[in-house]
Structures are given as C-alpha cells and as structure tokens.
C-alpha cells in the first residue's frame, strides 16, 4: 500500500507541475476530469490513493503557479495579485528573485500549517455555526473594505459591481466549469493582452543568490497566520483578497514582503482546506471538494495528507528554483509578444474544450472587464466581486 501511495504522490506531483506551469490548466479541472473518469470506469481504486494524488497535485501547483504568473503575466485567481509586483521584478531583471520570495512564503506555510492545525481542531467546530450565520455580513464587510481601499472610489465601485453582475450571470448559465473562462478572462488573458498592447520588452534576468533577512519574513508570516484559516473556509475569497485584508491588518508591507505573503497564503489556504474539510465537512477549495466526493476523511487519512504535503513541498522547492532559473536565463532571448500570443491561444483552446462556445463568450466579456479594470487603474482584486457578490446573495438571510 505504501508503494502505491508513493506512486500516487509522484503522479500528483507531475500533474501539479503541468497545472502549475501551463496557464489556464487548474488543479480543479484535473480533479473534475479525474472524478469523471472514476465514474466511468468499473475498476476499484482505493480512494486514499486518489486523495494522495489530489493533495500532491494541488500542493505542487501552489509552489509552481507563480512562474506563469510572474514570467508571463498569466495568473490564476490565487496568484492574480502577484502579477503587478512580479511584473515589476521581471522588468527590473529580477523575476527569479520574485519567484524565490513566493517560494519562501510557500515553504514557510508548511511550517505554519503545523502551528495552525491544533488551533483549528479546538476552535473551528464550535465557531463555524456562528461564522455561517454571519457569513453574508462578513463578506459584505470584506467587499466594502476591498472597494474603499482604492483611491479611485467610483471606478472601484463600477468594476466591483460589473464583476458581480458578470459572476451572477455566468453562474446562472449551464456552462460546464463556468469559473474557468470567468477567472481566465478576468485575470489571465486581460493581463497578457495589456502587456502585448504596451509592447513589453523583457531585459536580461539575473539569477544571483537572494539576500533577505529572517526579520523580513516575520510580518508577512504573521499576516498569513491571521487570515489564512478564515479564508480557507470563507467562500468567494481567494488568496489575493486574503493578502490584501491581511496586509491592512498588520500594516504596510513592501513588495518583497508582499510576494512572501502571497506565496504563504496561497499554500496555506489550500493545505488548511483539507483539514477544515475533516473538521467541519466544508470544502472551500476545488481540491478539497473533489476529496469530499471521494471519501469521508478519517484521522489516519489526515496523516497521509500531512505526509503528502510535506514530501511534495520538499520536491517542489528545488524544482521551482530550477525551472525559474532556466526561464530567467532564456526569457530575454525569446519573443515575449510571441509567447504571450501563444499563451492566449492555449487559454482560448482550453476554454473552448472545457466550456464550449458559451465559455468563449464568458471569456470575451471577462477579458474586457479585466482590461477595463487595468485601464481605469484600480486593483484587480476587485474583480473577485464576481464570486463575492453571488456568494453574499447565496448566504443572504431570507
């Protein structure tokens, strides 16, 4: 059995590399395909092997997904906020440094997980009933916070409201995987199109050793400890929103600290979600949701999950550094505009295959909204109104 689990972890690791590095291919998509295949096949597979595979894939993804986000400007919803600071590092020739900073965050998240889990076991089962009653109000407070945190208030309200309407209308369609075109357009294709429009030229990148102090990491890690547990079971909130809220709670963070924060929150929100699934039966992330459809988690499954997370983290760190170094050494030689266009074509193809013509329509509208957001000059995190507003309506006490 141990040998089979190792194989499942390695397979998940490989899939996580694919989903992390190729824009538009998210772990949620692979999980759905996996569940569908299991439904079609008559072969009996031990569910714990699939759990190990999904946990391994999703954890690997959180380490690698900053690479397309920072080098190509093609993020998923969890790395959306890394595009701007990451792009600045890229234009200064320091994209590799930005990747290392997110890695420091992701690696620290694994240690933070060990601190958070015992606290969650004590508090969460009692607190969840009160939180659920207050859910709509908490999300409204977060929405107001996100909107008022921008200098351009009118523009922020407009973008947030439009994103909300777009979310409601998209989720009301019978499109397969509606979030794929929605989030790809809002955060992916729009960013890449804008970088093509502004004719970005990539300078030679440096891959020298990163100089950072332990002190520099304390503030982002405390922030992560405070906000990640909440965001791992609050629907409609991504890692990016968690990062904004967190950075407001603990005070101003510089760009390096912000990247550490994004890395740690990204990994911690995911890994904590497996434990919240066990504790309260709620699955906030797509991967935890897939697991909930496979198995009723037991304490021994949590041990397998913990071992999977730690071992995959140990594999992902050197791999991410290696891949980032290779890209850094070569990206200035490549035609960035050409790479961007290829990336957009991949995103369109994936959207069409998964969500069909309706998906393409959603992709077009969400791309337009993402572009408008960038052109008006308000934070892209406001676009998460596409999930926040429908979720508020869902939890609204009738």
């Amino acid at each position: 059995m141990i040998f089979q689990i190792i194989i499942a972890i390695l397979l998940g690791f490989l899939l996580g590399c694919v989903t992390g590095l190729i824009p538009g291919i998210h772990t949620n998509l692979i999980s759905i395909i996996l569940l569908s295949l299991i439904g079609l096949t008559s072969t009996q597979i031990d569910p714990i092997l699939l759990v190990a595979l999904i946990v391994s894939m999703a954890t690997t993804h959180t380490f690698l997904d900053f690479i397309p986000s920072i080098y190509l400007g093609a993020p998923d919803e969890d790395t959306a906020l890394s595009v701007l600071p990451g792009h600045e590092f890229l234009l200064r020739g320091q994209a590799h440094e930005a990747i290392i900073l997110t890695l420091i965050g992701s690696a620290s998240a694994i240690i933070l997980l060990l601190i958070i889990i015992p606290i969650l076991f004590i508090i969460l089962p009692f607190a969840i009933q009160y939180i659920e009653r207050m859910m709509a109000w908490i999300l409204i407070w977060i929405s107001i916070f996100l909107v008022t945190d921008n200098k351009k208030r009118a523009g922020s309200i407009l973008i947030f409201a439009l994103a909300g309407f777009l979310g409601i209308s998209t989720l009301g369609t019978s499109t397969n995987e509606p979030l794929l075109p929605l989030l790809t357009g809002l955060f992916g294709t729009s960013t890449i199109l804008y970088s093509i429009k502004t004719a970005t030229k990539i300078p030679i990148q440096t891959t020298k050793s990163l100089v950072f102090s332990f002190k520099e990491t304390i503030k982002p890690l405390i922030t992560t400890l405070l906000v990640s547990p909440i965001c791992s079971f609050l629907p409609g909130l991504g890692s990016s929103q968690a990062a904004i809220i967190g950075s407001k709670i603990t005070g101003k963070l510089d760009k390096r600290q912000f990247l550490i924060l994004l890395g740690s929150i990204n990994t911690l929100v995911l890994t904590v979600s497996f434990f919240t699934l066990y504790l309260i039966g709620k699955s906030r992330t797509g991967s935890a949701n897939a697991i909930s459809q496979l198995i009723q988690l037991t304490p021994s499954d949590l041990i397998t999950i913990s071992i999977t997370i730690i071992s995959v983290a140990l594999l992902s760190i050197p791999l991410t550094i290696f891949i980032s170094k290779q890209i850094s050494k070569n990206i200035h030689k490549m035609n960035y505009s050409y790479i961007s266009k290829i990336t957009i074509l991949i995103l369109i193809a994936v959207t069409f295959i998964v969500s069909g013509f309706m998906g393409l329509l959603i992709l077009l509208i969400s791309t337009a909204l993402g572009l408008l957001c960038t052109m008006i000059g308000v934070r892209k995190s406001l676009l998460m109104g596409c999930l926040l507003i429908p979720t508020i309506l869902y939890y609204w006490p009738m």
Partner: protein
Amino acid sequence: MDNLKLQKLLLILIFLGIFILFILPEIGRPIITGEIARIEEKEKQTKIYLTDKEITIILFDSLNNNLETGRTIKVFGKEETYRGQKQIMAEKITLVKLK
C-alpha cells in the same frame, strides 16, 4: 484608438455581454433538475420520476444508457398538464454529475 475610446468600447461590450448572459440561460434553461427516483420504460416512451418532485418526465426518444436511479439530471423541454397532472415532454436530458 485612444484609451478613453477603448474604455468606452469595453464598457459597452461588458454591458452587452452581461445582458446576453442573463438572457441566454432563459432560452436554454432546464425546466427541472433532480435526482432520478424511478424509471419506467415502455415500448414507445419512457417515464422518469424524480425524488421529492411531483412532476413526471416523458421521453419519446431512446433512453440514454447513463441514466439510472440515483443520478441527478437536468431536463429541457416543455411543461404540460395531462389529466390534471403536471408532466414534462423532455427534449433533452443531461446528467449533472456522475455518481
């Protein structure tokens, strides 16, 4: 094209797009979604009963092999009343999720 013009164009596209997305599902919206409780296959038609729903689904087409008790389906078609009982003349049935 200057930025302001482009922003206006994008805004129009977004408004129009959201409007279309609101309208389209009304055209293609399933009449009912539910879990199959029972299936009755006859020579020319199939009747599907859903759990906790009083409506009967009538299908004149051949039954999809994947349809079986316990699966959740979306039913597209026309709602009618026959001898005081509500029924749906199904044009298309799709599976919501695999069990």
